[in-house]
């Protein structure tokens, strides 16, 4: 009778055909497949220059961050909407905050409808920024919008603002009583995705906060004709074009960079036109960290371990108990998302405490 030979595979082949076994073997020798320690995070590089914002007139805030080969490029553009002033009368504490409208795109070498992963990432980002109460509605409302006046003698338009040019402004026949607000549209592109979806959320969150902290809002003015304007954004109210009684005025963004002003985020102090150096951009928003919980067999017993910042196919497919935490350095937790997906490796309250502690330390170090 032929002897049945034991089949053995080289490690990289085993990792592909049986990711769970490969993961267990790595963990039992105290290493993860990506050669990091159990609670070690993948390093993140945040680009310090502001090149995308400076070279594109319609980008008002941007950030580029890298973690390994994964690159996240975030650009924030602006929209203008008319707001209903009477609706703000009631005071609801959480209602005074707004959020960004992100579109996450993971480059995969083909185009098409957004995948579930992209939709879930965008929506999670949208909701977490809203509920972390970071962007006050008042910071985005447009105050003192100016008016462009055509000077027939010089043939040029001059923009007057009620706060900057009060004397000239009084002379203008300006009857525009609507109130407007900015909307933040965040476009996030992810290249060479290497990390897990939960780590991708951490990177997207970080890049959005970074871009928001650098965001400079332009002044807005109203012109009666659209000629001679540089950046023209059609307001949502002009959807009624063609109906009766539509004013022909256009809402424009003033591209004069000297008049740009920073977005004042809740909890962050703004000094002049830049954030105070001692304050990091992540102080008020917190830093997002993710963990996976898995139990590994260990002589007769099983040991449950916490893995930080999941990465790679093996960790993504075999770890079902997940934990995602946004913590600030002031011991406030902004978000916890916990799923106990694996009955063998249960997230106990002790593990939750441990994960919160690690997230806080990470927030202090950012």
């Amino acid at each position, binding site marked *: 009778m032929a002897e049945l030979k034991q089949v053995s595979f080289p490690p990289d082949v085993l990792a592909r055909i049986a990711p769970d076994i490969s993961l267990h073997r790595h963990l039992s020798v105290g290493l993860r497949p990506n050669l990091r320690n159990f609670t070690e995070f993948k390093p993140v590089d945040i680009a310090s220059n502001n090149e995308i914002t400076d070279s594109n007139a319609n980008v008002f805030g941007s950030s580029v961050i890298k973690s390994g080969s994964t690159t996240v490029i975030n650009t924030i553009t602006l929209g203008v909407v008319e707001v*209903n002033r009477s*609706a*703000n009368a*009631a005071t*609801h*504490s*959480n*209602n005074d*905050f707004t959020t960004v409208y992100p579109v996450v795109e993971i480059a995969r070498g083909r185009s098409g409808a957004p995948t*579930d992963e992209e*939709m*879930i990432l*965008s*929506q*999670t980002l*949208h*909701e*977490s920024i*809203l*509920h*972390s*109460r970071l962007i006050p509605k008042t910071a985005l409302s447009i105050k003192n919008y100016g008016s462009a006046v055509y000077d027939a003698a010089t043939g040029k338009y001059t923009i007057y603002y009620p706060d900057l040019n009060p004397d000239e402004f009084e002379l203008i026949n300006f009857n525009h009583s609507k109130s407007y607000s900015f909307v933040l549209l965040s476009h996030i592109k992810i290249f060479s995705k290497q990390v897990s979806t939960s780590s991708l959320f951490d990177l997207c969150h970080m890049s959005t906060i970074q871009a928001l902290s650098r965001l400079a809002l332009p002044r807005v003015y109203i012109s009666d004709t659209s000629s001679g304007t540089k950046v023209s954004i059609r307001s949502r109210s002009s959807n009624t074009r063609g109906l009766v009684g539509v004013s022909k005025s256009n809402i424009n963004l003033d591209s004069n960079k000297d008049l740009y002003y920073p977005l004042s985020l809740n909890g962050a102090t703004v000094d002049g036109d830049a954030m105070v150096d001692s304050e990091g951009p992540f102080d008020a928003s917190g830093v997002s960290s993710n963990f996976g919980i898995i139990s590994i067999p260990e002589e007769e017993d099983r040991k449950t371990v916490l893995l930080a910042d999941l990465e790679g196919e093996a960790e993504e497919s075999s770890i*079902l108990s*997940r934990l995602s935490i946004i913590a600030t350095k002031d*011991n*406030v*937790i*902004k*978000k*916890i*998302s*916990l*799923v*106990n*997906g*694996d*009955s063998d490796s*249960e*997230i*106990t*309250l002790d593990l939750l*405490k441990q994960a*919160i502690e690690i997230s806080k330390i990470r927030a202090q170090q950012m």
Partner: protein
Amino acid sequence: MTSVNTSLLQKSDGSAELLLGSTKVIASVTGPIEPKARQELPNQASLEILIRPAVGLATTREKLLEDKLRSLLQSIIVRFKYPRQLIQVVVQFLISDSKRTETDLVDYTSNDLNAAINCCYYALIDAGIALKASFVSLSIAVKNGNLTVNPTVYELAQSDSHHVICFNIEKGKANKILLLESQGDIKEDELFAMISKAVEEAEKVHHEQQRKFVKEKVENDYVWKQ
């Protein structure tokens, strides 16, 4: 205010309608049925979760709810009992707190998620799908350290933090957290105080509502009753 009504859809294997606070939701479970080839898993059942909002079409908001519900249901359904088969869960909101036109409130999904989870419990029981344990979900708002269970959308708007917490119930005891979604400004001590209070509340819901319901259901559905 909670009311449950089951087996109201004729053509699905199990269904339930749940009214919880001001959220009304109907869930249907079809399965185990034959899956499409791409959904089939060789050693366990695959799940298809569809969520429909009360008004309009499903958006990314519903996609995220689907993802959360799926992560919970795939760990609680005994999936190895139905290899190569599909269990389809459709959740249709009838009345939802969110997107009320008369208010300018921000959108909270926690009451929706909570109602969907609890409704799925009754629908899965009605469909006779094997579950590893019972589960109870609670929506909780915390304001100055005080808890409100099943808050209204106004209470959510004024809370410091809001949570959806789902417990695994075995032998009448809540023994582990299956899902926790917390947002807002949360202090660590408040969080653990909230969890320990939620345990009592969840056990109460299990004993007073779920057990009573299942007992009555078995009595009524039992073919050979006297």
